[in-house]
């Protein structure tokens, strides 16, 4: 398996240019389109000289290529600039908010995958049946849900009406946060044996991660169903049946594994949806993650902070595509390194 290792190393190396391409594309995108952040932010409410001063301070009066070089240089140094509003380094602020987002996305993703794959597979091998129809309606319906609305609905039902689940934040106000190791409360709490914090964190995670998970599950249902329908038609499925392999094994072992391969590749690209969904979920549930941070900074027109968050999202996208490729390489024996 030496070649697999080599592949992984090379793949990591190619992630670096990928990151720069992504960052560059976004950078030029924001500059090429007409408009200007300062006037967008303050809309002519400030004296012209002060606007000009702000532009100069942010380096927006320089030619594009100089701006780009400056931008890359500071990126390379790991410097995302200083917040206009708090005057604190943006990278530090982001690091404080990132774990909450990760925790939410991981739980949301787990729910989405579980629901998506179970329902998708069930629908595929009963294609055309009532169950299939029901599952397809579910998939379209969840896809159409607007996260803030769905979130509010659940908050209303479970938080206000039934009063059984918290509707915001990561912990009960009476519970202290666990000692920070990873920043993911559930994991940190378990690692430090702080079960009070663990259950509190888990209870707070239920609604937001359900919202995120259910809304995204529709897409996974669809992907699983479509791919499995194709796989189930292959001869090796018929051959497995002809050898007397049980239906469950055929579906959950042979068909599912083969179905997951295309899904994994698509997933790398669909991860973007998860991140976008997380922003809306966080704002709905006052979840102190990147999305909430972003919303807050939008309100304060904190230009460097917004740009910083974008960079972090780009890094997340790249990391996920890297992980996806590696899982893919490990699962599929046909891949050539």
């Amino acid at each position, binding site marked *: 398996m030496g070649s697999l290792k*080599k592949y992984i190393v*090379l793949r990591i190396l190619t992630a670096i240019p990928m990151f720069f391409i992504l960052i560059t594309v976004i950078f030029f995108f924001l500059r090429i389109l007409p408009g200007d952040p300062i006037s967008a932010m303050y809309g002519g409410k400030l004296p012209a000289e002060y606007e000009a001063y702000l532009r100069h301070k942010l380096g927006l009066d320089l030619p594009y290529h100089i701006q780009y070089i400056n931008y890359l240089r500071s990126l390379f140094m790991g410097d995302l600039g200083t917040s206009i509003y708090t005057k604190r380094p943006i990278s530090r602020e982001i690091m404080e908010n990132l774990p909450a987002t990760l925790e939410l996305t991981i739980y949301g993703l787990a729910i989405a995958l579980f629901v998506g794959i179970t329902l998708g597979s069930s629908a595929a091998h009963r294609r055309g049946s009532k169950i299939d129809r029901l599952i397809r309606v579910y998939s379209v319906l969840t896809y159409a849900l607007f996260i803030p609305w769905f979130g509010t609905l659940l908050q209303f039902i479970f938080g206000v009406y039934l009063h059984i689940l918290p509707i915001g934040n990561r912990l009960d106000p009476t519970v202290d946060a666990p000692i920070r190791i990873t920043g993911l409360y559930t994991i940190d709490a378990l690692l430090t044996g702080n079960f009070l914090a663990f259950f509190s964190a888990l209870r707070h995670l239920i609604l937001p991660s359900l919202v995120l998970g259910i809304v995204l599950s529709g897409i996974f249902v669809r992907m699983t169903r479509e791919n499995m329908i194709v796989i189930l038609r292959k001869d090796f499925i018929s051959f497995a049946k002809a050898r007397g392999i049980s239906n469950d094994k055929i579906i959950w072992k042979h068909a599912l594994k083969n179905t997951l391969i295309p899904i994994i590749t698509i997933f790398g690209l669909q991860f973007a949806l998860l991140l976008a969904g997380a922003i809306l979920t966080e704002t709905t549930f006052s979840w102190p993650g990147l999305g909430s941070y972003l919303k807050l900074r939008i309100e304060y027109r904190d230009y460097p902070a917004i740009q910083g968050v974008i960079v972090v999202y780009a890094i997340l996208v790249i990391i996920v595509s890297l992980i996806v490729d590696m899982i893919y390489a490990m699962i599929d024996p046909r891949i050539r390194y």
Partner: protein
Amino acid sequence: MMNTKIVEVENLRKLFPVQKSFLDRLLSKKIEYVHAVDDISFNIKIGEVFCLVGESGCGKSTTGYLIVRLLEPTDGKIIFRGIDITHIKGEELRKLRKEFQIIFQDPYASLNPRMKIGDIIRHPLDIHMIGTREERREKVLSMLKDVGLYPPEQFYDKYPHQLSGGQRQRVAIARVLVLQPKFLVADEPTSMLDVSVQANIVNLMMDLKRRFNLTYLYITHDFGIASKICDRIAVMYLGKIVEIGKREEVLGEPRHPYTIALLTSIPGRKIAGKKLKIRGEVPNAINIPIGCRFYARCPYKKDICQELEPKFTKLSETHYVACHNIEMIKKDWPTLF
């Protein structure tokens, strides 16, 4: 002086680079090639049916595609009616295409699913701006009749998916003949059709040959069909012609062990005499051995075969065989019938 040859092929060669992933290219710079067609020469006389026979992957279809310039030759020369067409391009090639045409193997894939039958057959006339609108329609209708699709008016407005495989292949033939070409490559035109329909198409093609004074390069893996229609046969193995000659010579007194193995393996020969059984399968054409390409599977191999690639031995004015062991084979297989 009239040239009696319509097509002359000299030292034709086609190498396909092996597709590599981006990472592969990073890992090693060496590009590997599939030697699809490797230095073959032959000519086709006006009015004859020249058969190219071989198993899948031997390069016979590639040869056909090269001659009608659907593929770019790597090396060698193709002369059509005295004109070197090896490297003509653009408009010149486009205009010349009227003269030589190809019928494809798969009638299910060779017709645009979104065009009506009438439009499919008329399209070549539109492209080369032959005749008026009315004349084109007339021409298409008479062509439909010529290929046995009655009543033509009814077929004119149908879509390909409404036709059977045999009918589709008739449409494909009509599309080609409407330009009144002189030379046709037929790339296994019946191999995807039912046996009972196969002969219809072959007979139609031979009938049209007489009526329109056509010359055929007929590519097939089926010696049975070749024996019914051809004047001369060339047998290919791994990109090389191993035996070439008149029909009676190649079928009656084959001298290459591969030809004999193919001929004696045809199923359902009631007069089955002895069989020449050979081992293994056709290897891939990437790493070509130095000596005879058939060496690994040959029951008649000698040491020299591994080191020296056999050149053509002339057995008669028309019969050539590339083998080091003709004498021994002559002894074992004096005649096949």
